[in-house]
């Protein structure tokens, strides 16, 4: 666990053991493999970027992988104005579902995982095993019964129908429990107690800092899971005003044949919809690089 977050002392590039040199041939082969796959991963996104800058006529008539007349600003502003600015609304919804949901889910999971790691109480193992079972229950299997339950209380087709279920991250509890057990020393908690700090205050002032790498990991996992969530909104929501951006783009894409102008909006919207995630990843890069593998080490 803690091993995964430790970085190596020496930077990787200088790691040629005792002067043993790798042959130029294997170097070239390795670079070739990585180069080819770089194209595989980036060309679709490049195409999306280029397409988003073209007007409708040039989209089909010019080289798909290179720019024609620069129309990006016009395209974006047309998208943002379309249908009373519904796309802006969708992006806002997605941010609310995602940022709020991921933050609260991380906090709740961390509190529970921390308690499971640091306190002894009756039923502790039972709670942990139930949560662990929850990790293996696929979220999509819950979508339909959640819909039925929410319709009993007339809450389908609302913000809460998608937001509330996304606050639960069993994997987060699992991860934070392991991490808390390894990285929050009991002696420290004892010392805090002797200083008169309450358990809750110790958690928020001391333990949370020690658990920070795990918290970032849980946050990112949950962030991506909610941003990508499709089945739950698809089944819960009918009202366009509460759609997340994924569901909105999907619904536009199903209408492209009836309303051809939507095709351009779908492409520009797709490009805009991936920007927040890329920005988040870049900002938190330092953390996910070490943290993502945290769950894999026992």
């Amino acid at each position, binding site marked *: 666990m803690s091993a995964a977050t430790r970085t190596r*002392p*020496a930077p*990787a*590039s200088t*790691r040629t053991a005792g002067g*043993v040199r790798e042959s130029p041939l*294997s170097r070239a082969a*390795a*670079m070739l*493999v990585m180069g080819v*796959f770089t194209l595989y*991963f*980036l060309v*679709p996104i490049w195409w999306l970027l280029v*397409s988003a800058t073209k007007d409708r006529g040039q*989209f*089909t008539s010019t080289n798909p992988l290179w720019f024609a007349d620069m129309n990006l600003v016009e395209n974006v502003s047309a998208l943002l104005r379309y249908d009373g600015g519904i796309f802006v609304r969708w992006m806002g919804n997605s941010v609310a579902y995602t940022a709020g949901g991921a933050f609260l889910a991380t906090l*709740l999971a961390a*509190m*529970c995982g*921390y*308690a499971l790691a640091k*306190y*002894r109480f009756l039923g502790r193992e039972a*709670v942990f095993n139930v949560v662990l079972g929850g990790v*293996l*229950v*696929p979220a999509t*299997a*819950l979508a*339909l*019964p959640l819909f*039925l*339950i929410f319709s009993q209380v007339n809450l389908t087709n609302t913000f809460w129908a998608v937001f*509330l279920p996304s606050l*639960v991250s069993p994997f987060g*509890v699992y991860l934070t429990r392991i991490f808390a057990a390894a990285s929050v020393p009991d002696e420290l908690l*004892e010392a805090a*107690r*002797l200083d*008169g700090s309450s358990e809750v205050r110790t958690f928020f002032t001391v333990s949370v800092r020690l658990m920070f790498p795990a918290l970032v990991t849980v946050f990112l996992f949950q962030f*991506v899971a909610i941003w*990508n969530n*499709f*089945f739950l909104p*698809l089944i819960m929501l009918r009202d366009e005003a509460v759609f997340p951006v*994924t*569901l909105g783009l999907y619904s536009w*894409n199903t209408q492209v044949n009836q309303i051809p102008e939507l095709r351009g909006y779908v*492409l520009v919207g*797709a490009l805009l919809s*991936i920007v927040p*995630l890329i920005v988040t990843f870049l900002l938190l890069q330092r953390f*996910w690089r070490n*943290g*993502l*593998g945290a*769950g*894999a*080490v026992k």
Partner: protein
Amino acid sequence: MTRTATPPPAPTFGARRRRVPVPHKRAIAFFVLPFGTLFALFYALPVGYAVWQSLLVVEREGTFGPAREVFGGLTQYAQVVQNGPFWASVGRVLLFGVVQVPVMLALALVFALLLDSPLLRGKRFFRLAFFVPYAVPGVVAAIMWGFLYSPRLSPFAAVTSRVDLLSADVVLWAIANVVTWVYVGYNMLIIYSSLLAIPTEVHEAARLDGAGQVRIAWSVKIPLVMPAIVLTTVFSIIGTLQLLAEPQVFRSFSSAVTSTFTPNLTVYSTSSVPNFHLAAAFSVVLAVATFVLSFTFLKLTQKKGVQ
């Protein structure tokens, strides 16, 4: 909430044996209850509710009489067993998984090993470039590739005008490519960060003994990152059985993707009929199958690890 190290005087529960009283009861409740409540409401309750719904049938008096829900035992499950399209969809995702999961994880492993080897320059760039697709939501990735596959709009028209990637025979693998494209980088990172945890001395010793990079990867590194590979495999198995967003999007591009293409699509289309009881039974079967598959895989690999 200002509790100190002194434990509360009264013993709490389970008084049959003499047990140590639980200190910090209120703090524990404060930490566990919020998650516990939400977990009970939005995880445990739906599972129970799905099972309950799957045991009901709708009865009518006459053709137009009012519908009543009555207990039907395993009636819905008998329907599930006899439902040809559902089992065809299960077979389809299993075939998908048997091919796509190993290909994806093999690629992820090779990339991770290359990133960890001294053979590459510009590691930072490759790591980021390969991971970027993970930032693209499944729906958006499917829309993008849908355009890339279509014979008229694709930048690769030379290929797509000759081979119809959206035809009935090929579309499953076209979808497999979308899923692979999104998740290779993510799995690569999980394996890579596990590789970083191996002390450098381990493979430096092997290198000085004359082992080549391939040999080091095979005999030293891969065995040491097995837990990461197991983890990514389990996640991939779960993901495969849940396939929904990509095929649902592809229904706009290809008529070959039917409303029962994957098990989750079957659940969705059955619930839109609406036949919630049968859909609930599908969900339960699917959840149990997923649970059993990933659990079995975990157990199998753990046993192997012990030997």
